[in-house]
């Protein structure tokens, strides 16, 4: 590298220092902590022995794998046909179905869980309506409810990835198969489906990852059905102040799984996917009225069922309540008054923390994107690995690691609002980097060289030429960072303390105490705060909101 990159080398060094302390060190710290005997403080394998010895812990692992497998399976069963139907057939209202179909990805899962509790829980709407008629409402508690929520919230991932793969198929591929003598079904099973299979697998891995790292759903409706993330949290809360040894061990087990899934996704599935450029997309067929209606019913119905819980939450926020008892049909603004006027602090906290983390993340993300795309080499490979690592770490694990690391010692952040900003920054900046670096990849490096050649020094050239061109990507990345931060529960719940409770914490705790009305009011504010920026982004840039996740 030439001498004129000196300024960038300094920046690179600074970035590595930040990443080391924000990403790598906490994980290493908790890794080390997991090998410390909870009572004696000496090096020991006690926590791992406990994990493999007590069926209690092993059951958590089994439960995690069980609900994640089922969630993935059902997401596939619903998501794959959903993608195929929308890509290949004429269906009324297709664009609306597509747009709404991706919404569940962005809406917080724990709010979905809350809605199902209000519908199918012990004091739920269905129990109230059907109970007097002597009809038993199926229980939402335990693994059934968890799988239900996972399926409905994560099937859009399968949909997005599979439809991207379908759209990449050129019409000639199927025509060639037909020309060689294959019938319609044969073409589908010998050509179309195999070509799309890597995308299906990839989507399945992503969904499995999302299920196993999820915290909000199992803790709210799992009850006695404990999963790894919930158990790690419970152990951490009870160990706080002592040695986070058992929480550390559980975190490491979860980390091994999520890391493995990510590596599998990155190196195995991505290598197997087929790169194609589609000149002529597949033909969109018009079916006869009855099949068209059935397909429409499936697609529209699925979207309706997936979004229905959020409508329920929004309606319940303006419904009269008293503790867990909802007076459906009687409207009142009391919940909002209590949330906004009496306890507005969580709202302010959420906005403040999300905005701060996003602003830092944007600046950091722009610089890192630039280094990743423009200064390729061994160092940028390491940088890529480090900066994307948090995407492979469950929020609970990240929270535990940060809290334990910065609890004492030179830098004490635990118990301050800064640790929340740090966690959000670490966990959400990858989204900002993804969008900005994707855009930067399309900008030829010579643009910047042209500016340098005309007499503007490198760093100033970057500011004057590259940043303005990247601006749409920066804004899109920032919005995605902001909304996902706002909806973050898993790391927040570990890291917040009293006055810095966020809206997500508030929703979570009020559901826990059966205070559904105010929970719904905060949840509704959360939903609206997430949807409005995404809606604006969609209008302004025509960007598919969820595709950036």
């Amino acid at each position, binding site marked *: *590298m*030439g*001498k*004129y990159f000196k300024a960038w080398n300094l920046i690179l060094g600074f970035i590595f220092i930040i990443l080391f302390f924000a990403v790598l060190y906490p994980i290493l710290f908790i890794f080390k902590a997991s090998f410390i005997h909870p009572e004696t403080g000496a090096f020991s394998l006690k926590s791992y022995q406990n994990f493999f010895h007590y069926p209690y812990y092993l059951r958590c692992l089994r439960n995690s794998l069980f609900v994640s497998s089922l969630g993935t399976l059902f997401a596939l069963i619903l998501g794959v046909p959903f993608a195929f139907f929308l890509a290949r057939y004429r269906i009324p209202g297709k664009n609306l179905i597509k747009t709404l179909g991706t919404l569940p990805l962005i809406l917080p899962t724990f709010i979905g869980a809350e809605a199902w509790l209000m519908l199918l829980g012990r004091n739920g709407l269905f129990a109230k309506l059907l109970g007097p008629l002597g009809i038993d409402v199926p229980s939402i508690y335990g693994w059934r409810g968890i799988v239900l929520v996972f399926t409905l919230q994560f099937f859009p991932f399968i949909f997005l990835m599979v439809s991207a793969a379908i759209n990449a198929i050129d019409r000639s591929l199927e025509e060639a198969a037909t020309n060689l003598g294959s019938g319609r079904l044969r073409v589908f099973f010998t050509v179309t489906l195999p070509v799309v299979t890597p995308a299906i697998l990839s989507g399945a891995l992503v969904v499995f990852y999302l299920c196993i790292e999820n915290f909000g759903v199992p803790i709210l409706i799992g009850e006695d059905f404990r999963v790894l993330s919930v158990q790690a949290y419970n152990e951490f809360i009870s160990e706080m102040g002592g040695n986070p040894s058992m929480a550390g061990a559980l975190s490491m087990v979860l980390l091994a799984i999520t890391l493995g899934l990510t590596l599998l996704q990155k190196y195995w599935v991505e290598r197997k996917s087929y790169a194609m450029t589609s000149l002529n997309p597949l033909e969109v067929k018009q079916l006869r009225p009855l099949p068209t209606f059935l397909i429409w019913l499936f697609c529209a119905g699925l979207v309706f069922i997936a979004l229905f819980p959020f409508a329920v939450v929004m309606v319940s926020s303006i419904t009269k309540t008293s503790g867990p008892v909802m007076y459906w049909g009687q409207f009142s603004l009391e919940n909002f008054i209590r949330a906004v006027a009496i306890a507005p602090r969580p709202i302010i906290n959420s906005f403040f923390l999300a905005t701060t983390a996003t602003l830092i993340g944007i600046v950091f993300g722009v610089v890192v994107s630039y280094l990743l795309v423009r200064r390729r080499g061994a160092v940028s490979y390491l940088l890529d690995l480090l900066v994307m690592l948090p995407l492979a770490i469950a929020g609970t694990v990240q929270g535990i690691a940060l809290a334990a690391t910065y609890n004492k010692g030179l830098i004490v952040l635990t118990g301050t609002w800064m640790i929340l900003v740090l966690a959000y920054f670490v966990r959400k900046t990858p989204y900002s980097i993804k969008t900005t670096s994707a855009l930067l990849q399309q900008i*030829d490096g*010579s*643009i910047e*060289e*042209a*500016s*340098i*050649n*005309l*007499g*503007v*020094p*490198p760093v100033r*050239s970057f500011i004057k*030429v590259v940043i*303005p*061109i990247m601006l749409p990507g920066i804004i899109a990345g920032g919005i995605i960072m902001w909304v996902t931060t706002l909806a973050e529960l898993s790391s927040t719940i570990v890291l917040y303390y009293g006055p810095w409770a966020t809206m997500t914490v508030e929703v979570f705790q009020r559901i826990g105490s059966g205070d559904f009305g105010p929970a719904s009011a905060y949840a509704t504010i959360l939903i609206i705060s997430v949807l409005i920026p995404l809606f604006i982004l969609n209008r302004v840039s025509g960007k598919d909101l969820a595709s950036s996740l």
Partner: protein
Amino acid sequence: MRVELTRITKRFGPLKAVDDVSLSIREGTFFTLLGPSGCGKTTLLRMIAGFYTPDGGEIRFGDKRVNDVPPHKRETGMVFQNYALFPHLSVFDNIAYGLRARKLPRREIEARIGKIIGSVQLEGLEGRAPSQLSGGQQQRVALARALVISPQILLMDEPLSNLDAKLRVSMREEIRRIQKELGITTIYVTHDQEEAMAVSDRIAILNRGRLEQVGAPAEIYFRPESRFAAEFMGSSNIIELTVEGYDEAAALITAEAGGQWLRIRGQRPPEGRIVLSIRPEWIGVADAAQAAEANVLSGEVLSSTFLGPLVRYRVAGPTGAPIAIEVHNPDERGIHGDGERLFYRIPPDKPVVLKG
């Protein structure tokens, strides 16, 4: 400004992209770096611009060593292969970019831009965005932007490769006209030998990072020094033969080629194996009656391609490898078909004995 490269070397990992290249480019010259992709020509240009630092050797602009001068202080104007226009700036602002970096007063910026816009014929397009321009217009903006800062050296990296064939010809003429008008030292990179011959004062042929030959276009065409230069500039028949003897004045060599005799005038290679380059258009067609004459050879026609103004033959050659022959302005009845025996004459003063 004179440009002096002394023993320049650049490595990318194990690969020597530029290997011990020395060049002296005189003030006001249109100098072209010519070679196939991967030959190191763009790497060399980027070292002159300062985007790469040479691993060895020295770059001088005039008397000043510039190895350690950062690219933004080298005062070179560069035209990039894809133009690299700033998409967020108008045509005017693109051209003004370098002037503003130099903090020139606004009035002077406007005056200079007015002048350059006239000479590259972009009048009336000042307010447009780059995306609203045609390829040729974008090319002119890139050229204007590089020239308006009055650089000492103009660098051009395959500037015409994104244009269609017709536009390429007219643009290269225009680039040459402007270069002559300004008298600016220009270093031009291309892989297109015709383009190189059309615009250059001098050409350097590069191959695998090494310099093959430097010279005026006609010099390289008529007197290639290496097999690579002979084959890359135009096409050439490469024949290996054995020198058998010389005449009294040592002006005529007799050489044996697969049982047939060939005489070459005006060059004196050492005895033994030599490599000869003969361009297809230098070889004339003879008839059977002349078979016994000096330098008339014959062979079976392997393929015959009629292209209108010329016919291209591939004939079984004396040493096994086929010989390419181009007959310009052919006679309708004089075209030989596949399998026929073709007699041809190699003029004794045309072939070039290659070095090495």
